[in-house]
């Protein structure tokens, strides 16, 4: 049922990513949370490399770790208050409920994956996905999504600017 053979790389990357994710949500200081989030993203970028998508790994690092985390850090420093640093989980009952929901979901998905596992090829087919192909496919094969992406980017830029502007 092993989708991917559990070799050392996989184990290390999994540990990094999951620990980063847990720390991102549980760290006492928000700044540490943001840093752990960055670590988690780097772990995922490592997965992308091991899955023959190096360009996307670089995209992940440049966009998430390079840009989004900087934005998050800046915002944290902007809204910084003493109480924002305290552990801000809800009451114990709520946390337990959240844990249950999340656990059930994760277990059920993992169960489905384990059931479907044998049907998937265990040995990945040899990869032949050059990055030039990614470029040409991106630029050529999906015209409508590309235009939507442009609109999304400009909309997000303008929307965020107008939101953040000080009203006088």
């Amino acid at each position, binding site marked *: 049922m092993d*989708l991917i053979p559990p070799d050392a790389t996989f184990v290390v990357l999994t540990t990094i990513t999951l620990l980063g994710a847990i720390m991102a949500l549980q760290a006492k200081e928000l700044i540490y949370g943001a840093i752990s989030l960055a670590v988690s993203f780097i772990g995922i970028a490592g997965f992308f490399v091991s*899955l023959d998508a190096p*360009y996307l790994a670089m995209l992940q690092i440049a966009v998430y770790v390079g840009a989004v985390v900087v934005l998050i850090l800046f915002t944290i420093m902007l809204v910084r208050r003493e109480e924002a640093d305290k552990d801000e989980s809800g009451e114990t009952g709520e946390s337990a*409920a*959240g844990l249950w929901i999340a656990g059930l*979901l994760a277990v059920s998905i993992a169960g489905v994956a384990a059931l479907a596992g044998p049907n998937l090829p265990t040995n990945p087919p040899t990869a*032949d996905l050059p990055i030039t192909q990614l470029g040409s496919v991106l630029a050529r094969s999906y015209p409508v999504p590309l235009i939507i992406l442009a609109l999304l980017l400009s909309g997000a830029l303008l*929307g965020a600017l107008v939101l953040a502007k000080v009203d006088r």
Partner: protein
Amino acid sequence: MSAALLGIGIYGLSVKRNAIRILFAVELIVNAANLNFIAFARYMNPPRISGQVIVFYSIAAAAMEAAVGLALILVAFRLNSSIDVRKLNKLKG
């Protein structure tokens, strides 16, 4: 692996009260989905490039979502001087 990441994300989304942490959780969920796209496209026979294309758009969309979300948090902070989502229950500032 991806399921566990998704689980952590859902947990964060449902439990945390700090708006920035909720944003973290959303990013984690999106990343879990991205990882699945790449992995399944890679294990197809023959491997597909389309998984990577989708993830490209997904990363772009998630980055924009983070930008707008953080701007929203800023506005909320400016109006209420708090980023606790449970205090943001008023429709009027």
